[in-house]
């Protein structure tokens, strides 16, 4: 089986794609073509990530424009769906089934015969560290286990394309690290992955190719570094707490790249056009000890501020 497609077909693409639900516009004139082992879909809540994912996995039909995976429209495309794995965002299951029953049943729906589905279900449980929970009823599983089970059902049948909507949600740091390793292994095995997140560093850990969505529009596309650079061209804000914030602020304002300093009690926020140089300088000042800098936090790791810059 399987429709053979040429390498020239871009893995994920959209042309003038729009999706609206009644009066609500979820996606508006989104166009992209991207081919990479792992693609990250980045955007705050309500950006349209899940709508785009549902369009790419054939759950929904575009209201306008085209969406395709390997050059094929996904809605009702059974050949494409047979080679795709999809992990939805929401935490919903057939709660009465055991983890094994859930995986075996859903794997069989890919056309795998009973014995093969049983083997693949057990393999998926093992890969996601759920072997001990194999015969446990789903509603008794912890949030992290449920999240892993959701990923397991997407990759049990060994898909060529894997689409994961917020796969790290609710995972502890160890689970997250294991998931990152698993996704990298999948990609090394030839599986093309598209995953969404609203946390930049989660995506940075697995890929450098991202699509940046905000309010239903595609803001940027490409290497994460270029998006970082784009961000760095705009003023960057650093929050500091220090024993002598006023003196520290006065010292920092001597430099050209520092545009503004706000002081409140023992903390100050520095706005700079050259974050790297500013971080180095703050490090030197901290080492010198005169200002007793207690903490430093980059406020621009917050995606919302990144989007504020980019939509200006």
């Amino acid at each position, binding site marked *: 089986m399987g429709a053979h497609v*040429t390498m020239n077909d871009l893995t994920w693409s959209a042309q003038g794609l729009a999706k609206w639900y009644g009066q609500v516009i979820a996606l508006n004139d989104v166009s992209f073509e991207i081919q990479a082992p792992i693609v990250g879909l980045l955007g705050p809540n309500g950006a349209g990530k899940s709508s785009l994912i549902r369009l790419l*996995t054939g*759950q929904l039909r575009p209201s306008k424009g085209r969406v395709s995976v390997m050059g094929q429209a996904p809605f009702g495309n059974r*050949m494409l769906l*047979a*080679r795709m794995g999809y992990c939805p965002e929401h935490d919903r299951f057939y709660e009465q089934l055991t983890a094994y029953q859930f995986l075996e049943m859903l794997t069989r729906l890919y056309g*795998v015969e009973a014995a093969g589905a049983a083997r693949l279900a057990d393999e998926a449980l093992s890969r996601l560290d759920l072997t001990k929970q194999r015969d446990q009823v789903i509603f008794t599983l912890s949030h992290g286990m449920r999240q892993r089970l959701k990923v397991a059902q997407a990759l049990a049948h*060994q898909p060529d394309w894997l689409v994961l909507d917020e796969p790290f949600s609710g995972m502890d740091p160890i689970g997250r690290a294991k998931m990152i390793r698993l996704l990298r292994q999948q990609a090394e*095995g*030839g599986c093309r992955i598209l995953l969404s997140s609203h946390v930049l560093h989660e995506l940075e850990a697995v890929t450098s190719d991202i699509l940046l969505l905000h309010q239903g529009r595609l803001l940027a596309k490409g290497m994460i570094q270029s998006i970082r650079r784009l961000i760095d061209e705009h003023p960057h804000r650093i929050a500091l707490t220090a024993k002598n914030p006023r003196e520290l602020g006065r010292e920092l304002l001597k430099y050209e790249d520092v545009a503004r300093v706000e002081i409140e009690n023992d903390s100050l926020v520095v706005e700079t056009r050259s974050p790297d140089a500013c971080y180095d300088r703050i490090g030197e000042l901290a080492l010198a000890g005169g200002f007793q800098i207690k903490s430093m936090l980059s406020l621009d790791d917050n995606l919302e501020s990144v989007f504020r810059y980019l939509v200006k």
Partner: protein
Amino acid sequence: MNFVSNKAKPSVLPGLLESGWLMAKLFLKVAVGKKHLGWLLMVLLAPVGLTVYLRVFRGGSGEVLFEEIMVNAYLQFLCLGVSLFWGVSAIRDEIEDKTIVYLFSRPIRRGVIFGGKIVSVILFSFAILSVGVGLSYLVATVPEGFAYCTSKLYFLVKALGVIWLACMVYTSLFGLAGVLFRKPMLLAMLFAVGWEGFVSNLSGRFPMLTIMYYLKSLLGLGPDTEGIIAVLMPALEPAGHAESLAVILVGTLVFFFGCVYLGARKEIRV
């Protein structure tokens, strides 16, 4: 250059029958585990208890008693109720619980998802109802002797046939309501109680517009009209068997394929 995966892959897409069978298995696994199944079984077996009570305290002919229980408890109440409850929820629960995305992301025809669920509900409802009907029959007829019980078996077979037809037509109709409406339960209940329960027993020709009229006609029964209205407007005679069967089968086909067709084409947002 061709992109060819070297991984183990399913050799064929799941066929129509295989997908339908898997849908039925999924429904059974999920429905059997549901908390309300125990409660529903109790309700379904309640007519058996009622038959025992009437047999002991009222007596009378076993055939008449069975007919009374069959029409009033099973056909007009439980059959309608079970088809409504499972017909609507088999489809609506998947959508509201958002579990339908697991099915929509598999390479099976969307129509099969809806069709498979309806067929499973029909089989499951009939299996459960027929146990109750069979037990009620035994309770009603066995006290009059084994020979009497076996001589009236044709009536049990006819009753089970009508129950089967009722499960088919009502489940398909309520399944269609589950696909068409976001909140179908209230509407379905109004239809079951108001239309099928009330209009089917009105005087005049109104009952011809209900499904229940044709189901009861297959048992040789007309609308159960009483009071002053019955004097003013005579009750309708039962329809012929061929006409009744035709109306029920055509209705089932229209509702069933309507549900499959709309389910396959309608965009369901979860």
